[in-house]
């Protein structure tokens, strides 16, 4: 075990993968030479270590970056490409959704596309709505793509290694605000299986589902609630596709209550899917309405006062939980 920041954990996973397998290469805008000189940045130092053949800085061409990954993976390489921020993934959605997610199917299973796309998410860095916009719900609604969204350094490493060596296209969303936060990270080729959620906190009164950065908000809320003797069970999904339905349903069957939390906007957000699954498959166990705590249905505003207002916080979660406890 080592104490690593989230960014270092990602870096460690990339380093190990490249070291273990010659077919792994990195590409993206600034994955080699970055404007940041910071060991907490995921690809820091890898250009120096593996050289420009395997660490490829690209032009500002998101469709080509994604296309490169699709084409190279079809030839048997394991591309790990980066799209800088989630809103820019819109420029790559044709390549990801119509190609990465469908070409194996279209080939009748003849070809595989073992590619990984890393992309940064984040509200709260005052960059405004063209840099901050959580679109995980889009990717989760796209057949053939796996979607991963870790909340801890340990999971960031373990899930990324699993993603890179998974035979399918995997989108790994990294919450930028977490890069500098530290945690224990197992050494070596440590993998967290895709499709397994994590009980971040066991509890009995209410299930609280979240993922990515929002998990930290959930934990904050749990602390507040525990002072009032309210015990919530936090599920950190870790992987959105494939979803760990069992973990979700078992928890709700036990607690009888569900709150879903995410930083993305509410309407049509991923929380809706969680709510819908439970309303379909654990309805009989539900003692109260399902609450969603999410951002309002607006673009992310710039001004600090407004950006703070946008991002769901622990108090909102506390209120939601209390509102469904009689």
């Amino acid at each position, binding site marked *: 075990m080592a104490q690593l920041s989230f960014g270092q954990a990602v870096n460690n996973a990339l380093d190990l993968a490249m070291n273990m397998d010659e077919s792994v290469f990195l590409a993206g805008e600034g994955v080699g030479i970055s404007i940041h000189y910071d060991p907490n940045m995921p690809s820091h130092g890898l250009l120096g270590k593996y050289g420009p053949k395997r660490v490829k800085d690209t032009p500002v061409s998101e469709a080509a970056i994604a296309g490169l990954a699709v084409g190279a993976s*079809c030839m048997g390489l394991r591309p790990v490409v980066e799209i800088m921020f989630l809103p820019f993934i819109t420029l790559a959605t044709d390549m990801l959704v119509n190609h990465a997610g469908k070409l194996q199917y279209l080939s009748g299973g003849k070809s595989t596309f073992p590619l990984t796309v890393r992309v940064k998410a984040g509200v709260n860095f005052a960059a405004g709505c063209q840099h901050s916009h959580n679109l995980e719900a889009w990717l989760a609604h796209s057949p053939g793509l796996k979607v991963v969204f870790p909340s801890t350094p340990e999971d960031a490493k373990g899930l990324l290694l699993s993603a890179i060596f998974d035979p399918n296209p995997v989108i790994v969303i990294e919450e930028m605000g977490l890069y500098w936060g530290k945690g224990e990270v197992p050494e070596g080729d440590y993998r967290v299986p895709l499709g397994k959620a994590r009980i971040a906190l066991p509890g009995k009164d209410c299930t609280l589902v979240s993922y990515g950065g929002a998990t930290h908000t959930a934990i904050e809320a749990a602390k507040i609630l525990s002072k009032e003797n309210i015990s919530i069970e936090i599920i950190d999904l870790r992987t959105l596709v494939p979803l760990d339905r069992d973990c979700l349903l078992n928890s709700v069957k036990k607690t009888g209550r569900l709150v879903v939390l995410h930083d993305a906007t509410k309407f049509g957000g991923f929380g809706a899917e969680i709510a819908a699954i439970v309303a379909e498959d654990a309805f009989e166990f539900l003692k109260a309405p399902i609450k969603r705590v999410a951002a309002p249905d607006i673009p992310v505003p710039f001004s600090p006062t407004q950006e703070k207002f946008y991002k769901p916080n622990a108090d909102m979660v506390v209120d939601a939980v209390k509102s469904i406890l009689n």
Partner: protein
Amino acid sequence: MEPQANSVRLKTMYEKMVLIRKFEERIIELVQEQGRIPGMQILANGQEAVAVGIIEALKAEDVIVSNHRSHGHLLAKGADPKHLMAEIMGKATGVNKGKSGTLHLAVPEVNALMTSTVVGAGPPLAAGAAFAQQYRNEPNITVVFFGDGAAAEGSVHEAMNLAALWKLPLLFVCENNCWAGAQSYAQHCSVGEIAQRGIAYGMPGEFVDGNDVKKVYALALSMAEYCREGKGPALIEAKTYRMRGHGENDHQHYVDKAELEYWAKKCPIRSLKEKMLKDGIVTENELQAIETKTLAIVAEAVAFGDASPFPLAKEALNDVWA
């Protein structure tokens, strides 16, 4: 390979062009016999010399990436007509188990690696394939076929810039068939010759008569050589004509009949035939034998497709995940 097609190669190319033509003519009949074939059929009638001339200049290990108008490319690359036809018919024995149909046929076993019906999507995919070839120091190249209409897509530009920058072994082949759907070349493209776009990326761009298979072959050979030597990508614009509608549901109400007649006279198959006869490369008997043999291949393909079962409905759930 010889820099100019010799008579053996000319005959081979002729045979391949006839196969494509007959294969697709049979599809026209199947479309007309309602219910024999699902979906819209997009044919390369009139454009056979581009597919054959280019692919004849490649090695078997070279990769191609194709688009919606792919039958010619795939047959030229050596795909089995039986399994191709079965796929077009939506049968379980199809090259893609009936999941693709005519529009995205991929035949990786002959290095027809990927086909996309999203216009303009081929070039970035092909850049990825060419990158893999370069990464592994393979002596192979990738060829991507795209239309004149596709040249307007941003993805093509991104792929050209990337390929030129990284000197990828990638041959861009723009099949300019004068149409993008119902839009004529002049209605959708701002530059006189797409080949000129090579200048914008510092890569060679050459224009060729796409109805002259000999010329296409010769140019493809030199351009492929250029890519193979690690000099970077190259661009060929092959000017040809889409003799039928965009798809078989398009009755060309917007096409000038005189233009169609003009191009009909330039049929790549007929002109090659006449040339070979004139030069004494083939006899009428040999031509007849080619025709007979080809028709048999096509008949066998259709019979194979007909005899094949549709995939089970539930098998639709397979092949999403590896």
